[in-house]
Every structure is written in C-alpha cells, then in structure tokens.
C-alpha cells in the first residue's frame, strides 16, 4: 500500500491542478462579462479548497496515533478521508433536492456544482488508493 505521503501528494497534485483550472476559468469568464458563471466556478474552487483542508485534518488525526504501524496509519487515513466524501455533501444533496422540488434553479445549480466536485474528488481518491 502507498504511504500517506504519496497518497496525499497524488491527491493534492490532482486537486491543485483542478483548482488552478477553476481559477483560470474564473478570470476568463470575468473578462467575458459572465459574472454569474464566474461565481459558479468560485463555488467549485471553494470545494477543492475544503477537501484540501480535510485531507490535512485526516493526516493529522492518524499521525498522532503512536500505537499504529505505518500501514495501519495509511489505512486509517484513507478511511477517514474517504468518509468525508459521504459526510460533507449530505446537506448539499438535501439542499439540492429541496431546490429542485421548489424549482429554485439558482440554488440547485449551485448545489449541483458542489456535488459534482465532491464526486470528482471521491472518484480520483478511489483511483489513487486502489
């Protein structure tokens, strides 16, 4: 199994690259006078940043465990971080469903973007730890 360091690096390489794409897209959209679409990209950027913070939190949790082997730590780290991909978007999904029900398009497009990024990161993380 890969070490925490390797997993984290591979994940952050992907996340940072996607976040950079988002930042560039925000600039392009702003230059094209597409302010609302730029704001939707900002929502996505924010999700990349949230999960970057969370991966650091998962790492910190297991690194403090003295009675674990490196492999156990890596497993615990993966389980902990993977859990966030289910826990964090719960409310986004609820909000999405509610917004859809009430035809609040602005809200459901925002939530849809958040869920899209969370799913994308989850899939990427799954590939990394396979």
């Amino acid at each position: 199994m890969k070490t925490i360091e390797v997993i984290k690096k591979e994940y952050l390489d992907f996340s940072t690259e996607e976040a950079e794409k988002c930042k560039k897209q925000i600039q392009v959209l702003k230059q094209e006078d597409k302010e609302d679409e730029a704001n939707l990209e900002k929502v996505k950027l924010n999700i990349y940043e949230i999960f970057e913070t969370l991966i650091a939190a998962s790492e910190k949790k297991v690194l403090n465990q003295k009675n674990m082997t490196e492999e156990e730590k890596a497993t615990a780290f993966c389980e902990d971080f993977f859990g966030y991909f289910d826990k964090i978007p719960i409310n986004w999904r609820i909000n999405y469903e509610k917004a859809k029900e009430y035809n609040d398009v602005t809200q459901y497009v925002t939530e849809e973007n958040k869920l899209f990024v969370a799913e994308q990161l989850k899939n990427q993380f799954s590939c990394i730890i396979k």
Partner: protein
Amino acid sequence: MKVDNVKLFKCLGDKSRLSILSNLINEPMYVELLAERLNLTPSTVSFHLKKMEEAGLVHSKKEQYYMIYEIDQQLLNMSLMDFVHQENSEEKKQREREEEYRNKVIGNFFQYGKLKSIPVQRKKARIVYEEILKAFEPNRKYTEREVNIIIADYHDDFCTIRRDMISENLLEREGNIYWVKGNNNKSSLQYYLL
C-alpha cells in the same frame, strides 16, 4: 407593464444571457438545444433562463416533454426612452408624497385661513411661508405697509414672518419696496434636499 428596470438591466449585463436572448429572438427553444448551441451545460442555461424569466425577458411553456422558452416580444420592443419614462413615474410618486406632507403641514398650522403659530422647524415654516406667498401677486411691487397688511391677515407677528420670507428667498426687497422673488418653483422638500 410593470418592469423592474434595475433587475432587467442587471440581467442583460451578462454575455451568456445576451447570447441566449439572441437565439430566442430567432425562435423559441428548449434548454438542451440552447445548451448545445452555446456550449454550456443545461444547468447553466437553466440558471440563466430563470434569471431572465424573473426579469420578465422570457416566458416558458410546456410542450410535450419539453419546457420551451420564448422572448417577451412586448418588453423587447420597448425603447430605452420607454424605460426612462417608467423611471420618471417614480419621480411622480415622490412629488405626490411631498404634496401629501405639504398638505398635512398646512392643515396642522392653518385654521380658517389663519396661521395658528409660526412653525419652529424650518422645513415646516417654509411650507407655511410658501402658502402665505400665494396671497402676493407675482411681478407686482409692494410697500412694506402693504406686505404687513397681507401677512397680518394670517398672523399678528407680521414682522417676523416678513423677515423670514426675505431670508427664505421668497420675497425680495430694496429699500421699502418688496416683490415676489422669481423662480420659487422648487418645493420645500426639494429646497431642503439641495
């Protein structure tokens, strides 16, 4: 037709929405087709259409399985001048509010054509003086005695009122001669807002 001009123009200040509108001017369309044409996701197109619908620019109707969007022909045929005129109706409302306030002050301070007391508040005093000014003929010269007699019909303290009307630029004087100052068109509230 009631249009929120600010909302409308904010809505139009977006390139994607202008592109959507440009497509809808040609023919009514559904979200997926617009998305394909403009290389946007259907969600993004829905997002823009919702904003445009709220601004009154487009309407939607269900046709079989699709929600078809079409432009509001009447709104899009309006000229910029029409929108500016609509804004002027706001000024009209403001004038009505001023007039209402003015009538209230006059009602409170005048009774049977007499001034009950000189208002302490300058804004109200000006309204009262403007009302007294109506007793003066424009383009006519008055002696101080004539001015005093006219004002005394309203209130005994004609000296204070006469002086105040000069300082409020309602009357003008030169020596012993008084006349109504030209261009007293500004209402009291406008005067104090300046």
